[in-house]
């Protein structure tokens, strides 16, 4: 990649190019809004007002952001090992099963120890479902992209069967489990803050947000401050060289996919344990795929991922308000923006490098090399 691309100063690499890429995605999005006959600037205004204009909007925004931090981290940790996990959606779906089973059937556990077990169960189920593609990639050389795509559909079929035929409360029309007991849920902020005298409007924003921040910190420490993280990055950059360094790429592949699946379980913690308090059909709603956009936009760095997740939280919450005000700009617009971010920040990430390099070289007195 770097052979044909001129070296850029660090600030351009870290800030300018990613900003240009994202700006291009939003510029095209603006053109799309214009094309369907609406004013993009007005749309942005409504979107931002809806997302961060009041505490209620902010609560929803941060609730969505929590989901995206988890799925973004899940995708990103695999990026570091040179793996592309498209299966976060399915892993999170199955993780929901773990959370629900623990919360529903381990009710004898005292107090909030139940929810801690339920969170662990979500992580465990997510990891277990990611383990199979991870193992197949490591030991049998089956491409993880294809297997994780297949596993998304297998998850969908499996969970559909379990929810419709096994877990559904008898006599209930909807394919969902019964409500979790009070000890088996993650408390929401408006409840937590009430005893402290702080009034926060009723929103799904819950303590999972803190868990997400902790996970981001944990991923950062793991990737850049531990031996395992070094091994993951080495395998990601050059698996062959890693072997000469005494690292087993197969082992790293399995460990990384396990961690990724566990992080995907965070989506279940936020949505199932934190908001729905019951397992529902297709609860993941494509949020696993948002993680791909978030990871690419955040350049697989936890800080970038948190920022990108908040941006997507703004888009999802503000987009809902926008669709209400301007029916022409339906929520599908958010999927378009998401796709364009993946296109420009991911697939076409080097498109602006050459022009920027030429421009910067012309401005400095240094002769171009």
């Amino acid at each position, binding site marked *: 990649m770097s052979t044909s691309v001129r070296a850029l100063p660090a600030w351009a690499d870290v800030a300018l190019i990613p900003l240009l890429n994202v700006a291009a995605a939003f510029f095209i999005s603006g053109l*799309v809004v214009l094309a369907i006959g609406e004013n993009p600037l007005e749309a942005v205004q409504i979107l931002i007002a809806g997302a961060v204009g009041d505490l209620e909007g902010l609560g929803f925004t941060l609730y969505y952001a929590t989901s995206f931090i988890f799925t973004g981290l899940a995708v990103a940790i695999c990026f570091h090992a040179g793996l592309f996990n498209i299966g976060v959606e399915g892993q999170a779906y199955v993780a929901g099963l773990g959370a629900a089973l623990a919360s529903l059937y381990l009710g004898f556990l005292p107090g909030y120890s139940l929810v801690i077990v339920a969170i662990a169960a979500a992580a465990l189920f997510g990891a277990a479902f990611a383990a199979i593609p991870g193992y197949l990639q490591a030991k049998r050389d089956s491409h993880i992209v294809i297997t994780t795509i297949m596993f998304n559909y297998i998850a969908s079929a499996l969970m559909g069967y379990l929810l419709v035929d096994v877990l559904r409360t008898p006599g209930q029309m909807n394919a969902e489990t019964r409500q979790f007991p009070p000890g088996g849920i993650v408390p929401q902020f408006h409840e937590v803050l009430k005893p402290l005298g702080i009034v926060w409007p009723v929103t799904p924003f819950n303590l999972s947000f803190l868990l997400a921040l902790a996970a981001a910190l944990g991923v950062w420490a793991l990737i850049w401050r531990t031996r395992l993280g070094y091994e993951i990055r080495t395998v990601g950059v050059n698996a062959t060289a890693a072997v000469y360094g005494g690292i087993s790429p197969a082992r790293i592949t399995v460990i990384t996919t396990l961690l990724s699946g566990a992080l995907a379980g965070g989506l279940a913690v936020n949505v199932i344990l934190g908001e729905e308090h019951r397992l529902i059909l297709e609860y993941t709603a494509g949020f696993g795929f948002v993680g791909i956009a978030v990871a690419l936009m955040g350049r697989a760095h936890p800080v970038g991922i948190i920022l990108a997740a908040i941006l997507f939280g703004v888009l999802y919450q503000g987009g809902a308000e926008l669709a209400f005000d301007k029916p022409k700009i339906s929520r599908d617009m958010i999927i378009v923006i998401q796709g364009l971010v993946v296109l420009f920040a991911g697939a076409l990430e*080097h498109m602006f490098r050459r022009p920027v390099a030429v421009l910067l070289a012309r401005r400095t007195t240094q002769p171009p090399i």
Partner: protein
Amino acid sequence: MEMFDTFIQIFGSGIRLGVPLILACLAGLWSERSGVVDIGLEGKMLSGAFAGAAFALFTGSAWLGLLGGVAVTVVVSLVHGYASIDQRANQIVSGTAINMVADGLTALIGNAIWSQGGRTPEVPETALFNAIELPFVDDLEGVPILGSIYRHLISGHDILTYVAFAMAPITYWALYSTRFGLRLRAVGENPAAVDTAGISVRGLRYSAVIICGVLVGLSGVYLSLAQAAYFQPHMSAGKGFIALAALVFAKWRPWPALATCLLFGFLDALATRLQGVELPLIGAVPVQAIQALPYILTVVLLAGFIGKAIPPKASGVPYVKER
């Protein structure tokens, strides 16, 4: 005899469900054989279905609908081509982007034009691809078994179905018996060698990407103008990914691709048929188990337990000319 009629019915709907898979799978075959991995088949199929329905509604002609659907899909395909070939992008990322943009944009535009939540109005009968009755159907009526097979399985499909079935041998011939096909396969295995021979790697890969766009565009048009008479958001419902699974299952070869897509179409028809039916000995089979079967089979194959699926060697690898 009733048993026989049931079989004919299931096979008939299996063929109809298999057609979009065949076209999309062969589309993926062309692209991946040239070294461009395509997980964006799903999004391209949606684009073709939407544009096909829109053009057919505006012009009142199925053929202009087809032309529009295919043209739009080729443009979408070229975006993936530009990213993969010229920008040397990660082709998985590019395909994911195509899927997302197509999924959102078709629903968004459909909703903006017709205000029905993204669904288009019903396409009139005259702007659809309707069933064609082949000659001698009535003459063969009296022949036992064969007459019925001829009437219900061979005759009575629309033109796109016959095109889909013809595409397998055409693809086989083009890939294995023409100079272009040989070069195209070579560029998917060893682009450097092709380059050394003075043939343009870029040109070959772009041709493959365009052929891919045409074929998957046809599969989209089939969805909205033959199988249904409208476009509706997310109507491809994972068929692009099943086609991808079929491509892996068929080990990137045209004839097995045809057979696999028919098998997967048949499984789909069977799943619908067996809904809530108690089978002797087995009992009720969960529909989801049959629906998941194509994916499970593909994973088992990929795991190397039944044969080994080895993709074209250079697929997914951008070609960098040596300097």
